[in-house]
């Protein structure tokens, strides 16, 4: 049977099988799932504690002046939750082939008639599910622990921003996966890229703090729009273009362009590596 030319149903079954395999794998490590929830809360508590310790009773007022909301706890929690989604996208997608290389299963994978892109899609679906679970639970639990109401603002709109932003984010991660395949040094590169994106998307601060050039670069990253969209929907910090549908439209543009770009770069890199040193070398 030629799987490369298979029906959509067949391809979908490959995607789901890949997702299922990874979900089974992670279900064997329940502690990891618990940590997925705890880490964003701990991460958000760092700037919260730093701010409370230094700024004292004026913390909320100054924070509102700088960000548009006095609810700095929810602001930081949203940033940290978005960080976990971005972080998973990069670690799971960009590191996927590298991990297969290191464990010696990559060449075996290339011997199967299944195209890698469907396995990558399954990995992305798994990563999305895990990232969303972690981010939403961390936000709810963190809000409960730190004493803020998580059910404020337009929750449906916030979800719309997250869901529309996921595909461009994973396309970006796939594109970056191609760089990792080429350069090999996965851990360092992914760590760096994770922090670059985290920095540019304004995890704990508004991007208005950036100098003009960095601000423009940050606006080219889909996660920036996703995070600000969620914050504006829930906390009313203000959309970049003043209205939710305009910001969402920008994310739709990313959604239409980024997957093709990501796939094209990945495909080109893969062909180049197969023609030269081969996929198994690391």
């Amino acid at each position, binding site marked *: 049977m030629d799987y490369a030319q298979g029906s959509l149903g067949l391809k979908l079954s490959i995607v789901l099988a890949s997702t299922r395999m990874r979900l089974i794998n992670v279900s064997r490590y329940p502690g990891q799932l618990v940590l997925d929830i705890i880490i964003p809360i701990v991460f958000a508590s760092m700037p919260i*504690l*730093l701010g409370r310790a*230094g700024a004292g009773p004026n913390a909320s007022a100054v*924070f509102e002046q700088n960000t548009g909301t006095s609810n700095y706890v929810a602001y930081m929690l949203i940033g940290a939750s978005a960080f976990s989604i971005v972080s998973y996208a990069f670690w799971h997608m960009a590191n996927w082939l590298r991990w297969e290389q290191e464990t010696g299963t990559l060449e075996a994978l290339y011997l199967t008639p299944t195209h890698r892109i469907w396995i990558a899609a399954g990995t992305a679906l798994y990563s999305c599910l895990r990232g969303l679970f972690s981010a939403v639970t961390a936000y709810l639990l963190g809000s409960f622990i730190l004493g803020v109401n998580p059910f404020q603002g337009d929750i449906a709109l916030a979800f719309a921003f997250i869901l529309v932003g996921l595909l461009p984010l994973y396309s970006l991660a796939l594109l970056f996966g191609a760089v990792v395949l080429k350069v090999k040094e996965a851990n360092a590169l992914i760590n760096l890229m994770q922090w*670059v994106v985290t920095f540019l998307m304004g995890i*704990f601060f508004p991007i208005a703090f950036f100098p003009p050039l960095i601000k423009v670069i940050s606006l080219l990253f889909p996660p920036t729009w996703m995070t600000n969209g969620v914050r504006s929907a829930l906390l009313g910090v203000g959309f970049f273009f003043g209205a939710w549908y305009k910001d969402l439209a920008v994310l739709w543009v990313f959604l239409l362009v980024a997957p093709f770009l990501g796939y094209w770069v990945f495909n080109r890199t893969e062909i180049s590596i197969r023609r030269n040193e081969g996929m198994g070398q690391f």
Partner: protein
Amino acid sequence: MEPAKTYERPPLGTYLSTFWAMVRKELLVMVRYPVNFIASFGQIFLIVAIFTLAGSTFYRTDPGQAVGPNGGDFGSASGVVVYGFILFIFMSDTLWTIGYNVRHEQVQGTLEQLYLSPASKFASLVARVTNLLIWTGLVSIAGSALMALMIGELPIENPFLGLYLLAMSLAGTFGLGFSFAALTLRIKETAQTMANFLQFAFLILCAMFFPFSALPPFIRAISKVIPLAYAVDAFRSTLMGYPPGFPELAPIGFEIVVVTLFGLLMPVIGYFLYRRAEDHARRSGSLAEF
């Protein structure tokens, strides 16, 4: 009949040459991945920038003001943040470089081979420490300079006592790394999660980026039973010249005793635990399992 071969303890020279070979191997691996060097510095810069900008959302009152705090409050906190940051990156790198690296060798399939050789396992562990001292030392100096530049002048009082406390704190931290390597042999893949968890747990419980006074009382009570928390408190209070309210956990004399004991005992305990875990793994045949 040929007499039974006895394996005597090798001379010190053998230990040293093994140790040097291991250090050289680790350095060679490091040099072959130059992007790692650049990425580590870049990462430190970004983490510093993220937390500086996050802090400035609570301080900046003038919209045109550059990155950094308004007035002296945040600037005076630079000692708390920067000195905590130095211990944080050593602690973090120790967990990953010494502890999790054992797991990496398992995944690559080189751990069992290492154990088949007669080379000293102690040298193998300590070799990782040496590289960590060189590399993380450079990164921490660069990171501290950068942070001081961004958030204010750095106070440097009592430098010799500060250095002593740093040395003891690092020795204790390396002991933690050995213990974590032992745990890694037992818990396998969960070690990655555990390293992440410990890193964040120590970050909060040892108040590495903020004063202990920011912690709720019940968390501060937990901090008081962690020696590394005393190391952080004593190190930064000493270098800051004991400003009012510092040290926060106990009088400085008591903290120095705790840090000294931590630095002397923890490596011994850590190595003992590692040998136990290694012995268990060899007996159960799980050294190459992952």
